[in-house]
Structures are given as structure tokens and as C-alpha cells.
């Protein structure tokens, strides 16, 4: 009797509707995360885990300069990708929001998603074709006589990783900024001009602060996954373009050292979380409730 009451109640219905998502989240996100956390405190044995608590993995991660160097490079590259992506996404979002007629906006957003029609892997390979030794850029420049030898700084380094990632994440950055710009009451911009400000100053004093919630979202959406990106540096990064995820992959699957790989993962997650929180804190005045 009591059981039926819970099932029929509003709260019961709510939990019922939530349960597929909850089960999915617990099984595929929380559980693996807890496993990784537990692994990171275990003693590494050769190709197996010795179930004995230790902090040695963390002392290695924090002590060995290779990890710090890779983490730093990952953060710098992710920052570069984020800057390139968000700075190029803003004008596009602005253009669609302010200069495309309302009935055409959906079409433009649809066009922006076209890169998603092919798999990410294929897009990365396409960049190899474009940037490679005998690639599109080198062949074209050679053909018109701009260069004698193919340029080698295009592919297999940090630059190519940044270019490839920036291209992949552009739509993710455009959409939140677009949404924030769409929400701006156009009469606010007229009010800015009416109160004596030029269009540029109105943009800086009204449009930009009101679009900052979208910019902040874009930054996080691009920065957080790119710090831990593994596919792109593997395919186009060369040795100088390797990032923190590459060493995690190395620890897990090449060396079979789960505890060490887990400790690097947890440390990287911690650093990214702290940076994201600091970033949110610095931008808190743009994120408070607005009607």
C-alpha cells in the first residue's frame, strides 16, 4: 500500500522520469570516476594493481618535471585554442545575431553545424591533408612560386594541434555567444546611443558585458575538453605537440600502470576544476541573474 503511494506521488513520478538519466550518469560517469580515484591511491605493480594504499603516485606526478611540463603545455595550448576559437566565434555569432534577418538565422546556424556531418577523425585527417609536407598549402605555395621547399612547421607540432582543435570547437563556441547576443533587448543599444555613446562605445559598455555570460560559457566549453584532448595531438601533434592526455594513455595502455595514469588524470582534473572556478569567480558579475 505504501509502495503504491510513493509510485503514484509527484515526487515518485519525478524520480521515475529521472531514473534513466540517473542510472546512465552513475554507471558511466560517477562509477568510472570513483574507480579512477581509487586506482590513483593504489600501488602500481607490473601490468597489475597491488591493492595497497599509497601516495607515491601523487608524489611522482607532482615531483617529476615531465608531468608539470606536459600539464603546462596542455594548459597553454588549450588557452591558445580557446582564445583563437572564442575570438573568431564572437564576430560570427554577432553577425548572425545582428545582421542576419530573423527568418534566415536558423539556416545560418544549420550551416555552422556542417563540419559535424563528418566524423571528428576524418576532420583531423583532412587537416593533415591540408597542412602536410605534400599538402594543399605547401603544393599551392610551391605552384605559385612563393616557396622553394615545403614548409615543415605546419604539421606535427603545437600549431597544427591548435589549428585543428580551434576548427573543431568553433560551433560549440558560436552557439552560447549567439544565444547571449540574441537575448539582448535591441532597445538597450539604442538607449546607449541615445545617452551619447558611439556605436563602438555602446558595444563595449552594453553589448559586450551582456554577451559575457555566453563568452564565459564558450570559454569553458572549449577550454575544458581541449586540455584533455588526446586524439588530435596523437594524430597531428608530433613529438612537440604531445599533451597531458597522451601520457595518461601511455601509462594506462602502453605501460599498464593504472594507478599512475589515474593519479595523472585526477591531478589534471583538479587543476582544470580550480582554473574553471577561478575563471567563473573573476567573471561573476556578468553571470548574476538578469531579467
Amino acid at each position: 500500500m505504501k509502495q503504491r503511494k510513493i509510485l503514484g506521488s509527484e515526487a515518485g513520478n519525478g524520480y521515475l522520469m529521472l531514473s534513466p538519466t540517473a542510472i546512465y550518469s552513475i554507471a558511466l560517469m560517477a562509477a568510472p570516476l570513483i574507480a579512477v580515484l581509487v586506482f590513483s591511491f593504489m600501488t602500481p605493480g607490473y601490468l597489475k594493481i597491488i591493492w595497497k594504499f599509497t601516495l607515491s603516485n601523487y608524489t611522482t606526478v607532482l615531483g617529476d618535471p615531465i608531468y608539470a611540463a606536459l600539464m603546462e603545455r596542455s594548459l597553454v595550448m588549450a588557452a591558445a585554442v580557446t582564445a583563437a576559437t572564442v575570438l573568431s566565434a564572437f564576430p560570427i555569432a554577432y553577425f548572425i545575431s545582428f545582421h542576419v534577418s530573423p527568418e534566415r538565422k536558423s539556416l545560418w546556424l544549420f550551416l555552422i553545424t556542417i563540419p559535424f556531418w563528418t566524423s571528428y577523425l576524418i576532420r583531423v585527417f583532412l587537416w593533415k591533408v591540408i597542412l602536410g609536407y605534400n599538402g594543399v598549402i605547401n603544393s599551392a605555395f610551391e605552384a605559385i612560386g612563393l616557396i622553394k621547399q615545403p614548409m615543415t612547421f605546419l604539421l606535427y607540432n603545437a600549431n597544427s594541434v591548435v589549428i585543428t582543435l580551434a576548427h573543431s570547437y568553433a560551433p560549440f563556441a558560436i552557439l552560447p555567444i549567439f544565444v547571449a547576443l540574441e537575448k539582448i533587448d535591441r532597445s538597450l543599444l539604442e538607449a546607449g546611443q541615445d545617452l551619447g555613446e558611439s556605436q563602438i562605445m555602446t558595444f563595449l559598455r552594453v553589448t559586450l558585458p551582456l554577451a559575457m555570460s555566453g563568452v564565459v560559457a564558450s570559454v569553458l566549453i572549449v577550454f575544458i575538453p581541449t586540455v584533455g584532448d588526446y586524439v588530435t595531438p596523437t594524430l597531428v601533434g608530433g613529438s612537440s605537440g604531445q599533451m597531458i592526455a597522451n601520457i595518461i594513455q601511455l601509462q594506462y595502455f602502453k605501460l599498464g600502470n593504472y594507478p599512475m595514469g589515474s593519479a595523472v588524470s585526477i591531478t589534471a582534473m583538479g587543476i582544470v576544476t580550480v582554473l574553471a572556478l577561478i575563471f567563473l569567480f573573476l567573471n561573476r558579475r556578468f553571470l548574476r541573474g538578469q531579467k
Partner: protein
Amino acid sequence: MTESQDPATRPARPIIELRDVEKYYGDYYALRKISTTIRQGEFFSLLGPSGCGKTTLLRCIAGFEELSGGALLIDGRDMNGVPANNRPTNMVFQSYAIFPHLTVEENVGFGLRRDPGTKAEKAARVAEALEMVGLKGYGKRAAHALSGGQRQRVALARALILKPKVLLLDEPLSALDKKMREQMQSELRKLQRQVGITFILVTHDQEEALIMSDRIAVMFDGEIAQLDSPERLYRRPVSRKVAEFIGIMNFLPATVVEVGAEQVALDVGGLGRLSITAEQCPGGARTGTASVGFRPETMTLLFEGDPEPTRARVAEGKVTEVVYYGDMTYYEVLLDGVEKPIQISMRNVVGRPVLQRGQRTRVAWDPAALVLFG
């Protein structure tokens, strides 16, 4: 466009001159060759139904729309090519356009960035402006936490702090509830007298325009149909269209028999032959078919025991509808010899009964209250 002489308005220099102002979008005319003058220090209203061009005209003055033709002068200076940020006008927007990311005082002080005053001077001016609109002590509040009425006050303070030559108000009261609106109407009027700045109000609410304005321009289809004081607009509308837009007007078919220099002789269905003065023909008079109009309050029902009117004439009819408002009663009366019932409003006085539907009644009316429409 017709502008009649209004003896009541004070002599004042023009602040805005419109010369054949035109605005069209493709082949749609929003404004058709509007020429008029708005005087320094007056409360001027642009009144009309939606789509009549009143908001377009306001936006042309503000500089948000470019003229398609003609010239617009503010304080003697041609505004052609002058962008909104360099015009001596400020606007209170219909949505108030309060910056949601700023506090109340940041909103009010928004336009002071280039002002040469010191920080303390600016803060004092912001405080003064807030006090003027009755928001003293609200400076630190977040703008998005304000009520509709408070937002409007912030919008007013933000515009007035810049001491514009003309303040433009785009239907500023339409979003407020009735009580708040009435309060703001009288406050705005007081504020306008206090600061002495020319106010131009756009509204579709004829009552609001009548209450607040020194002069009203009634607009239809991109043209000014009549520009007059509220009283003349109400008593002497130049056309049936203007008369119908402002308040209630009864119309009766009439024939103009003779047009003299001072008097016009008419034959009005249901009322008989009569003569009115030329002043009662604001739209002019020609012999032939026409119509006469009168306001519901200019006719009076005669009750048992009322003294016989001396000046007024008396008609008879039947009550067809009664609407009781408390202080007033609205009657619809079908006069003998008239096809359509007319509306008559009566103040409810102690001891006077409210008539029932179907009762016969006598109606006293004065030819001096009639207006002739050609």
C-alpha cells in the same frame, strides 16, 4: 493638416521644426510630408492608432531613423546626418531599456561618461536626479530587481540628468497598471513644469493625451489630422475620424441649407431646423449632405419636476439601453425620427431616478454644442 489658432498657449520660440518630413520603407509611407513646429517648453503629444506613424516620427526626431525627405531642425540646427548620440534629445523607451547589468546609479549616470565634472560632482548629480524622480536611496540596487514603475523612473532620471533640449517619451505608461499609470501621468506633468524641458509623448491613449498635453497632434496614416489644445481637440474636432478617435461622439445626418459668413443653417434629422455659428464648423461648411456630432454629456434627459430649459431645445425619444457606472449613467436613446440611438451620459444626482429600458423620455439639447462635419 489643419491648425487652428489657440489663444491659450503661451508665446514661445520653436524648439523643433519639421519641414515636409517624409519617411517611407519601400513603397510604404510611414510619414507623409509633415510640417509643424513644436514649441520650447511645451508638453506635446503625438496621438493616434497603431501604425499611424507617431512612433516613427519620434524615432526620426531621436535620430534612430533617417528621414526619406524634408528637414528636421532642433533648436534651429538641421539634424540631417547627425547621429542619435550627438542630438540634444533623450528618450524614455517603451520597454524603458534599463541596462540589466548595471545598478540604478550606474544606469542613471550612464550618459555622464564624457561629462567633464569630477567623480563627486557626477555622483551628486545622479543622487539629485534620483531624488527628483522619487527614488532616493535606490542607487545601489540592481536594475533587474526593480518594479515596472521604478524602472520607468530610472529611465526618466537617466534621460533628464543629461538636460536634453527635448525629452522623447515612447508610450512610457502603457506597461503600467491603471493606478500606477494615473499616478505617473500627474507626476510626469509636474516634472515637466518643474524642469521646463520640452516633452514629446507618443501615446495611443486619448485620455492620457488629453490629461497631460499642452498640445496634441492627432495622426492618421502618416499625416497629422489635427494639431490643437486638448480642449479644442475634444470640443471642435475637424473631422469625423478625429472625433471618433477622441472620446465618444454621436453623429446625426444633416443637410446644410445655407452657409453664411457668421451662421450656418442646417436641417438635422430628428432635431429639425437650426442654425449654428461658423466656429462650430472647424472643418469648414458647404451646402449639401453632412453630419453633425455632439458629445454624450452635452445632452440632458429631462426628469419629472426639472425646470423647463430656457435656452435649450427639447426632443423626445425612447430609452433603449441603460449602463449604470455609479457616478454616471449612460443611456442610449432613440430620438423620434432618428434611425440610430444616441448616447447620453448623466451625472447621478441624489433624488434623480435611473430610467429603465423602454421608458419614454424628453431630451434637452443646445445647438451651441453641435459640431458640423462636411
